[in-house]
C-alpha cells in the first residue's frame, strides 16, 4: 500500500489547529470526511474515538495514527494533519504529537487496513522522515517526501 497513491492532496492539512486530543480527533475527521466527501462525520468520529478508548494511537516520537473500521467507509481512506504546537494525545512517551495520520476502512475486510497501518509504521520509524514532515512547507513537498521515503523504506 503506497500512501502517496491513495492520499488526496485535499486530505493533507499542514496547519491543523487543535489544542486537545478531542479537538485534534474532530479536526482530523473533518479533514478526512471533507476531502473524500463522506457525509456521516458523526459515525466516523464515533468509530475513531471508540478505537482510541481501547488503546491510544499516540505511538510516541511526536506521532499519532488514529484509525478505525467503520461501515461508513466503502474503501480505505487516509488523511494527514500537522500541528506545529503539538497536542497532548496520551502518547506512550508522554510527548506531544505533531504528526497525525488518520485512516478509516470498511468493517468487513482486514487486509487493506493492516497493510496501510504497517506501511505507515515502516515509514515513520525513520527519524529523518519524521523530521522532514515536521519541516515541509507545502502539500507538494509532503507528497514528494512520502514518495521518496516509500522508495527507500518500503
Amino acid at each position, binding site marked *: 500500500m503506497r500512501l502517496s497513491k491513495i492520499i488526496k492532496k485535499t486530505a493533507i492539512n499542514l496547519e491543523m489547529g487543535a489544542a486537545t486530543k478531542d479537538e485534534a480527533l474532530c479536526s482530523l475527521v473533518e479533514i478526512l470526511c471533507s476531502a473524500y466527501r463522506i457525509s456521516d462525520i458523526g459515525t466516523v468520529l464515533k468509530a475513531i474515538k471508540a478505537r482510541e478508548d481501547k488503546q491510544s494511537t499516540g*505511538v510516541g516520537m511526536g506521532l499519532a495514527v488514529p484509525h478505525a473500521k467503520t461501515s461508513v467507509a466503502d474503501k480505505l481512506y487516509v488523511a494527514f494533519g500537522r500541528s506545529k504546537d503539538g497536542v497532548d494525545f496520551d502518547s506512550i512517551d508522554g510527548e506531544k504529537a505533531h504528526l497525525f495520520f488518520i485512516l478509516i476502512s470498511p468493517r468487513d475486510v482486514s487486509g487493506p487496513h493492516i497493510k496501510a497501518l504497517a506501511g505507515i509504521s515502516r515509514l515513520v*520509524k525513520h527519524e529523518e522522515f519524521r523530521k522532514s514532515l515536521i519541516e515541509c512547507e507545502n502539500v507538494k513537498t509532503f507528497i514528494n517526501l512520502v514518495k521518496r521515503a516509500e522508495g527507500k523504506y518500503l
Partner: protein
Amino acid sequence: MKVKDYMKRSFRAVPSHAPMKEVARAFFETNDSILPVTESDGTLSGVISIDDFILIFLPDYIDLIRNIDFIHDFGALEKASYSIEEMLFVAEDLQRENYPVLDENDSIMKAAAVLHRTDIQTIPVVNDDKLVGMISKNDFCRAVFNMEGRN
C-alpha cells in the same frame, strides 16, 4: 448430532482491546491458525487469521515477486524493531468480521458443509452471539463415528 456435542469448549480467545503481543502469544501457545476475538460480554467480535498477523511484517513488494527462492534475506527488514506496530495494533484492528460462524444448535453435517465449502480448518461456535466453542474438520471426523474425545 449437533455442533454443541462435538465442539471444543476449551479454547483461547483474546479481548478486542488485546495488545499485539498478547495476540502473538495466543497464536504461539495455541498453535492454531485463527484466534477468536471477544467483547467484554463474551460476544464474538471477529476472528484473527495468522496470515493477516504475518501481513504486518512482510514488505509491500512481496505480492509482486513471483519467485522468492532467490531471496535469502530481506535486508534491513530482518533487523527492524516493531515498537510502533506494537502500539498501533490491538486485536480488533486485525480481526475479520465476516468470518463464518456456526450456532451451537446447527447440525454437525452443516458444520462439515461450511468447513468444506469455505476451506477453513476451524470455525467459532456461538450461542446468542456469545462465543461458546470452536469446531474443526477434525471434530467432524470424531462425530461421524461418535468417538469419545476431548471436548
